[in-house]
């Protein structure tokens, strides 16, 4: 067949596990393995020959999709499409609804979004913010077997891990605020997520101020005063210039979004 496909994948071994155990085994220590969740991020990289993996691990049939809620403890499979998250409480639901369009949300996965990082024209891991705000933990496989850890530490080593699921306790209140996207297919330039736990503790996180979602500890410490918290948030970040916005602009807008989120959290009993 005289294929005209641009895909640089002729030499790639494709693995299609049909269970979590098979996926974990196929992933091994992750060396040379490209994990394909929904494919929305990596397929263009294959098409344009930026990625030429030795192995590709297709997660669609690995049984890693689904959402469970046990007494407010929510667990989401890594291969769950974003469309399934839009009805979850804030800040997660509103954030998921703000990603891509119907067609992207229908295939892009939670795991892919958590692992989306540096190397693109702009940050892409929008869900890292809300999941940091709700104090989520990630269950993942790789060298040393299956482990569960806070999202913060998972993000540090996510290249060597296969995300299996993410869990969090439903917060007492949550809020999400993002810069409007000019078009549905644009990435979000800056977003802030906030959540108040059952004990009244407020956690804040931002995406778009670096390649990864980050907590905003200085803003959290000043959470009683939204204005002060907005200013304090600037101490927690070192924003960058990229295709979507300048660092200058992000520093101008971050306090506004922090204030918006905290004000909204105050309004929720």
């Amino acid at each position, binding site marked *: 067949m005289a294929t005209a496909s641009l*895909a640089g994948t002729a030499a790639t071994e*494709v693995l299609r596990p049909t269970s979590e155990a098979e996926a974990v085994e196929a992933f091994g220590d992750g060396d040379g393995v490209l994990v394909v969740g929904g494919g*929305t991020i990596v*397929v263009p990289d294959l098409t344009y020959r930026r990625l030429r993996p030795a192995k590709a691990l*297709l997660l669609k049939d690995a049984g890693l999709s689904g959402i469970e809620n046990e007494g407010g403890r929510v667990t989401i499979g890594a291969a769950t499409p974003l469309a399934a998250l839009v009805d979850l409480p804030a800040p997660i639901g509103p954030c998921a609804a703000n990603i*891509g369009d*119907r067609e*992207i949300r229908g295939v892009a996965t939670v795991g892919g979004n958590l692992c989306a990082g540096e190397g693109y024209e702009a940050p892409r891991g929008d869900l890292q913010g809300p999941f940091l705000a709700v104090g989520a933990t990630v269950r993942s496989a790789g060298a040393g077997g299956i482990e569960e850890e806070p999202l913060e530490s998972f993000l540090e080593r996510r290249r060597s891990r296969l995300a299996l699921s993410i869990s969090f306790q439903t917060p007492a209140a949550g809020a999400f605020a993002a810069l409007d996207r000019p078009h549905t*297919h644009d990435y979000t330039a800056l977003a802030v997520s906030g959540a108040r736990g059952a004990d009244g503790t407020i956690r804040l996180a931002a995406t778009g101020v670096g390649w990864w979602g980050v907590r905003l500890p200085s803003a959290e410490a000043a959470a009683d005063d939204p204005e002060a918290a907005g200013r304090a948030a600037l101490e927690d970040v070192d924003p960058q210039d990229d295709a979507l916005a300048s660092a200058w602009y992000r520093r101008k807008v971050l306090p506004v979004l922090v204030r918006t989120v905290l004000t909204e959290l105050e309004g929720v009993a």
Partner: protein
Amino acid sequence: MNIVVNGTAHAIESGPLTPLLDVLREELEITGPKAGCHQGGCGACTVLVDGEPRRSCLLPVAYADGAEITTVEGLGTPESLAPIQQAFVHHYAAQCGFCTSGMLLAAQAYLDGGGTDDPEAIQEALGGHVCRCTGYAKIVDAVAAAARGESFDLTQTAVGKYTTVTTGGAT
């Protein structure tokens, strides 16, 4: 791997990571879906996969294994246009035509899901689709008309020498 496209079953030879778009266009020579960007940014390649609108340039064909695919060729023929196709013709919603097949399938999915003629809802449903001729107003008008169930006798809209243009059995 096997896929059904517009009711016809095909065994697929392309590798499992090959985007569905390339399988359709290059292996099966079904050229209605267009490669506008090959990276998910324009929507010209959108097809229905088991009824859901999908960017075929982003979908490894392995993820469509066993699925039923609808391309613009399966929506309606020149002799028997689907209502959304009639509406696009009537409202001049196709200019250069390159975005049209993707627009039509996203619109069909919107209508299949009970979409109304609310312009904001239509814009949300088609928001990922780029028309660089910037004919958006006419496209939204066409989808709204189809959502209202309007039908068009396309043979009755012309005058003068252009009446010789045949629009088939569209009613």
